[in-house]
């Protein structure tokens, strides 16, 4: 709009309006008093308020719809280990456990992998190779999760059952984590498929973060006689807060993922020390059981478990933010992702 760029020339109508009303809404909303700025700010404010309103409505709706279950079970719902819709007994602990542990497995695998990919693409790879590789990695993020799930059943689970899990059981079998019957379906497989799904997100963000570290930092390190590895460490230290942001983003996707996990995790609400045993996540149980739930208490318990997912996400994000803060307190974050 051409009129907005021009310096403000008060027209008679404007002056009349300003006098007629006791306050000038344009001045309230923008320092320059320009109509365009005021409208722009209103739109921005509206977008923010809309998101806040949606979150507030979601929490209210979930709390209201889970009232029955909240009243019936109270805090026992969080500690309960039984999930029996036929008898009307509901407890969320196995689902919380499965959600948290599968996400942790995913991060343990995906974070080093993503960092490796990103460092290679930014610091090592020739430019001509970096572009297509980055494109292929990001392509993984566009695959629908149900496709990951079916691929998980038909390719990943048999592969883990035949090659990976026996290996783990043989060498790390003294840990309770890697004991038990090997079926290829279970918590471990769920974690691995999540790792594959969040790797493109984490690596793409970390790549941008690393690329944003000023070249002068690298030149300074090299000038001081640093090796390639030492230079990379300088770059990583500068990008620490951005990398942490990327990991939180990946974690968010892992916690909320439904279809792919439910296909390979075994969907059994139990808490077992072994990662080979079937488990269950919060998002999966909602997706699995909501459509056929008819009793009021059953529906209410499913909504309450959704509310808990909200809380779990909130708490894990909080912990992650604290971690970022404690890691980056000393360093000056030059590149940030979030």
């Amino acid at each position, binding site marked *: 709009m051409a009129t907005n760029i021009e310096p403000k020339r008060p027209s008679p109508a404007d002056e009349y309006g300003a006098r007629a009303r006791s306050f000038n809404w344009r001045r309230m909303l923008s320092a320059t008093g320009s109509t365009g700025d005021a409208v722009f700010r209103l739109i921005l404010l509206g977008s923010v308020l809309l998101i806040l309103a949606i979150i507030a409505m979601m929490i209210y709706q979930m709390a209201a719809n889970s009232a029955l279950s909240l009243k019936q079970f109270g805090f026992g719902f969080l500690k309960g280990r039984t999930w029996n819709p*036929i008898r009307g007994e509901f407890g969320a602990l196995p689902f919380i456990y499965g959600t948290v542990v599968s996400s942790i497995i995913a991060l343990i695998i995906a974070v080093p992998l993503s960092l490796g990919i990103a460092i290679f693409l930014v610091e090592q790879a020739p430019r001509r190779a970096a572009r297509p590789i980055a494109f292929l990695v990001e392509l993984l993020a566009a695959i629908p999760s149900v496709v990951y799930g079916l691929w998980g059943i038909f390719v990943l689970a048999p592969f883990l*059952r035949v090659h990976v899990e026996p290996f783990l059981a043989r060498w790390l079998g003294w840990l309770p984590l890697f004991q038990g*019957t090997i079926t*290829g379906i279970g918590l471990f497989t769920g974690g691995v498929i999540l790792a594959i799904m969040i790797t493109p997100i984490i690596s793409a963000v970390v790549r941008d973060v690393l690329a944003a570290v000023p070249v002068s930092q690298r030149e300074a390190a090299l000038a001081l006689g640093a090796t390639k590895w030492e230079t990379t460490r300088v770059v990583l230290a500068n990008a620490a807060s951005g990398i942490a942001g990327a990991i939180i983003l990946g974690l968010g996707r892992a916690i909320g993922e439904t279809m792919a996990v439910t296909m390979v995790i075994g*969907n059994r609400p139990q808490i077992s020390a072994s990662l080979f045993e079937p488990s*269950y996540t919060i998002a999966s149980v909602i997706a699995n059981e909501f459509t056929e739930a*008819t009793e009021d208490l059953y529906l209410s318990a499913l909504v309450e478990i959704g509310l808990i997912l909200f809380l779990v996400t909130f708490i894990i994000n909080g912990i992650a933010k604290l971690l970022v803060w404690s890691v980056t307190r000393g360093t000056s974050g030059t590149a940030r992702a979030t």
Partner: protein
Amino acid sequence: MPVSSNIKRGVVALLLTSLLLLAAACSGNQGGGTAGVVRLQGAGATFPNPLYQKWLSEYGKLNQSVRIDYQSIGSGGGIKQIQEQTVDFGASDAPMKDDDLKKASADILHIPTVLGAVVLTYNLSGVQQPLRFSPETIADIFLGKIKRWDDDKIKADNPGVALPNADVTVVHRSDGSGTSAVFTDYLQKVSPEWKEKVGTGTSPQWPVGIGGKGNEGVTGQIKQTPNTIGYVELAYAVQNKLPVSFIKNSSGSFIEPSLDAVTAAAAESVQTTPEDLRVSITNAAGAQAYPISSYTYILVYKEQRDAAKGKALADFLWWAIHDGEKFARDLQYAPLPAGIVKRAEAKINSITSGGKPLRQ
């Protein structure tokens, strides 16, 4: 540049006005075009969805003045929506419970449409002939009491079959499902222990096993994991050429799951079917009856608020249980036995609006 910006504004205003006019014209057309067409909404069970979609398209060709839509949102959703009157008809695999019927504002009729069955499928390398199971053995496997494939009870049903010396891995549905409800309904009829420990429902608490999402999830896990056993819908097993087990029925004969054996189970139970047609036909009597079978139902209000809609709905249901049954076999659903068609006819004829019957 006030002139050019005025022109711009004028163009924008013109565009907006024409868009508004266009929208108004479109909605006007729609209103005029569909004035004579009755629109019906249905929602519910996923199991009969392929058949219902076929029916809707075939019926739409015959009768252009009715347009019916069906959303397969699950039996639970179908029952909820008919209770809240947000749809014209609901659909459910299991009949509604007494409590659910009480929650509805008026009488709801159950119209059976077709039959389905649940089959046991497995992954055992080296076993060629179909496995045979007696009811107690199935219950013990799913209770986790039979842990090995070479257990004496499995051997007793399958003389001469080389059963592997391996652990049994049970695969069940993880999503709430009418298939699970029918299977557990069968198990609680044949095993007092199952009835006491687990019971029946769309999402039972399984004593053992891993859960797969949907028929495809269960099938995928069975195909990929050796020494597994699980249950899927008959239609799904036939279309995917899965190995299926013969099951011993209450007359003592081992029955291969087939559409005829399912219809036989329903036909054998006609006499014992209650007036409202809400019935479980698992473990049915009769030499040829396949024991894990069930009806799937369409749910409608007996008293229709809108006479035109009610008439269209009753006519469609009438067509479905007569001409519609022809499409069932191709899609691997068992058609209703003649005795039940007669009983369903009476139900459809009892649909009224303003107290007056709609089909006479």
